[in-house]
């Protein structure tokens, strides 16, 4: 429950005993050697797939739908670095460089990245990435499916904290060659100047970091929006509220339109209130991004999600809340490329912050009859045994 210590050090702990990690050690048998589908990723696979991918895997396994995809494991990266003898290059280039010498680091970093980008990825690994991508395309019934390619660090951070890396994310990538290339670039991003400096400062070895890459379908958003698993106005936790608009969710996040608004009762899953807004604008995909477009007049005043979809989104919200153990602020989307209900995704979720009314956590609550001092001491002892 307590989350006081920096989680990344726990990961470091998990890695004692060396960095060579193999799928078998984690009891996984996948169709691939270097690829794990998100549903095969779990917390215990973290050293293999990194924080972001492990988190996605965990959500999938908790029954929370996310856009489908797979992880290129850290084992692939390790194999590649070994085969191309790049670790020596990393060590040699950085052996005499001091953390204070920004110029030298910049020179060394760019030479390492160059070396990585010019060393070809072994055929075996390339073939697996392409095979997995092809099967993702088939699943979505689309050739050249646009995907997001993201690095997922195994050592230095968890899902959100890529301070070390600022490792890259590539959106709207499609085609076999492009997907392989973006993966390659993610690998190289492990050696950005900033990442190198960070590791030097905290004394983390430059040749002891591994990286996994996540490849995930870009949502082709028909309708999207935001959901709170409580009523943000009254703080009532028996309700779920959903705001929705056509297209991508940015229009809601930016408050660009008056969205459709639904309030759902958690117990009966019935819609207690629905207000249909005037939705005159929406974000749509165009090229490598999204643009704003007018909504045809006849669509402006009709609900952008069906009753079945409202219920499905609410059910997903309850699963996410249960999984994380606290009220959540969730971004969701309905994908145009997949059939219902597989098309209902959570694209991001975070705990409801102090800004919204939230309930006081049950984990730290005092039982009736216990003294205040004793309760504080209990909590302190819980902290020690974290």
């Amino acid at each position, binding site marked *: 429950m307590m989350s006081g210590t920096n989680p990344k050090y726990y990961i470091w702990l998990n890695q004692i005993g060396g960095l060579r990690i193999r799928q078998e050690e984690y009891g996984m048998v996948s169709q691939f050697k270097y690829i794990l589908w998100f549903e095969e990723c779990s917390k215990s696979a973290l050293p293999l797939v990194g924080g972001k991918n492990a988190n996605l895997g965990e959500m999938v396994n908790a029954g929370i739908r996310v856009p489908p995809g797979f992880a290129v494991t850290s084992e692939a990266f390790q194999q590649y670095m070994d085969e191309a003898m790049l670790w020596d290059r990393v060590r040699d280039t950085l052996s005499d460089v001091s953390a204070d010498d920004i110029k030298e680091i910049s020179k060394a970093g760019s030479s390492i990245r160059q070396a990585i980008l010019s060393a070809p990825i072994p055929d075996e690994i390339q073939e697996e990435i392409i095979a997995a991508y092809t099967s993702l395309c088939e699943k979505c019934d689309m050739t050249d499916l646009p995907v997001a390619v993201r690095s997922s660090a195994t050592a230095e951070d968890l899902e959100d904290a890529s301070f070390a890396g600022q490792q890259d994310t590539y959106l709207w990538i499609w085609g076999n060659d492009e997907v392989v290339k973006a993966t390659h670039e993610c690998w190289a991003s492990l050696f950005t100047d900033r990442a190198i400096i960070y590791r030097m400062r905290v004394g983390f070895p430059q040749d002891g970091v591994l990286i996994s890459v996540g490849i995930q379908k870009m949502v082709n958003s028909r309708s999207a929006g935001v959901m709170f698993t409580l009523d943000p106005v009254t703080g009532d936790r028996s309700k779920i509220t959903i705001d929705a608009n056509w297209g991508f969710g940015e229009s809601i996040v930016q408050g660009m339109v008056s969205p459709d608004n639904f309030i759902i009762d958690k117990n009966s899953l019935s819609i207690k209130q629905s207000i249909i807004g005037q939705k005159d604008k929406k974000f749509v995909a165009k090229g490598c991004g999204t643009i704003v477009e007018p909504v045809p007049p006849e669509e402006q005043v009709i609900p952008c999600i069906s009753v079945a979809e409202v219920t499905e989104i609410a059910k997903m919200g309850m699963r996410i809340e249960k999984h994380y153990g606290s009220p959540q602020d969730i971004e969701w989307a309905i994908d145009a490329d997949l059939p219902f209900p597989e098309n209902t995704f959570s694209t991001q979720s975070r705990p409801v912050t102090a800004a919204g009314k939230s309930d006081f*956590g049950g984990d730290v609550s005092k039982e009736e009859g216990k003294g205040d001092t004793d309760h504080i001491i209990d909590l302190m002892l819980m902290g020690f045994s974290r």
Partner: protein
Amino acid sequence: MKIYDVVPGFEFDEEVDLEKSPAWFLDATHSVPPWTPMFGWFWINFCRHGMQYGAEKLSLPTVKGWDWRFKDGGGYLTLNLVMDEAERKEREVKFREAIRPFIEDYDKLWGDYVDEMLGHYARLKACDVDSASNTELLANFEDVINVCRRMWEIHMHMMYGVDTAFILFENVCKDTLGIDDTHPTFHDLLRGYDNKVFEVDRELWKLSKKAEEMGVADIILNSSSGNALAALKDNEAGKKWLEDLQVLLDEDGWRMQRMAEINLPTWLEDPTPAVASVKFFLKQGGDFNLDTERGGLVKRREEATKEVLEKVPEDQQGWFKMLLGLAQKTGTFSEEHNHYLDLYTHALMRRSCVAIGKRLVGAGVIDDPEDTFFLMPDEIRAVALVPDGSNLRHIVERRRKEWEGWCSKENPPAILKEGFTMDDAMGVLVQSNDPIALKVVVGAMPVPKPELNADLYGICGSGGVTEGPARVIMEESQLDEVQKGDILVAASTAPSWTPVFGLLNGVVVDRGASLSHSAIVSREYGIPCVINVFEGTAKIKTGQRIKVDGDNGVVYIMDK
């Protein structure tokens, strides 16, 4: 005679010590630059003792304090972990009772300790070191040793208790209210309190007003801080003003310029830093900033408390309020203890060593009173009563040379057993759940926010947004350069820097935590502060315009 160039008994011995623990960390906060041998002896012996005493007295379930070694002027530390599960359970039982006084009556606990220490200090000061006999002088030195040992016991008993409470409060806020220790509301909850360090600053501010009344303000303003004293002494009104300053120093001048060393004069010996502080107040003009700020801060604290309590259910408010109250006191403790504990004791250590040094110079044993910093207590004992005919120059010379060697190179940040990596070592630190290690060694790491497109990413030490010229300050002697409206950029800040905050619009530091000096003082002055940017002093140049966004914990360089 065999001469040891290190702290006897605590020299780092690779073979033996790496067997005891595979990871030893340099205490870079206190032992960079390297310690003189005498100060190192005091620190290694008694800080070590104090940590073990504090952890044992509290019966911390997971850790029995730290062990320390001395290597080339650096203090290296490791954790004494509790490995046995049964022992841990036993310690938990005792912890329940031992921590109680912190929760039930913190004021009495700390108040009694302060009174005890002031009693020790009064006794030590009662010895007139100029007229004392050799016997009395040595007795004073032995007393200083005992007082230092006791100071560290109190220091670490308090600090372990206080940090345990503070960490719990942080976690409760994070887990139940969604605000962490970098959140502005979290800061509002804890600020707006006076403490002893601010009291001294307020007295210095009063002296600045007096300087204006007495017509000596211009003398202070127009001379560099090094020359101000001489210029004041040349002037009748200036002399009178210095007498007033002396009254303050007699009471509160027992402090050192450097946090953990005795080789620079105390404020009493050389009031230059005090005069420099007065100069800051003169430059700034107007009322004492802290008092002006305080009203607003107290109001914000009350509002934040109300806002937070609304989210706490009725039946949970009792303990929550108690814990909040304790956290508020502990914020003050982390500033105030420097004054009553470390700095005061060190000032008296210096006084005793220099006084004996003067006798030894008189007897022809050494050349300079401060040569005693290159002796060990046993060597002092060997000559303090009957110095006649002794000569310790060969020891001083050899150790000074050794010390100069230490100062000319950098000590490694950690010494690790072969095959043991830094991440393994950090793992051990975290596993210890040692409250001081968690607050000091494993600070919060900045998360980059690419959407902000900033030049430096840190964490929020104090909220708010400001823009202004940067002033990069690498050491205390440069503080004189600070102008009103500057944004201070430094590696970190120390208690003696506090008065300069009144001139500043914002602060950026390379390292720090929510309880570090720069963050606490910025919050009290109500100015934005970004900590843990790592590369601030490397990337920012004096005179560049920078924008400090405390709320988001980022810094922008406006004219690159």
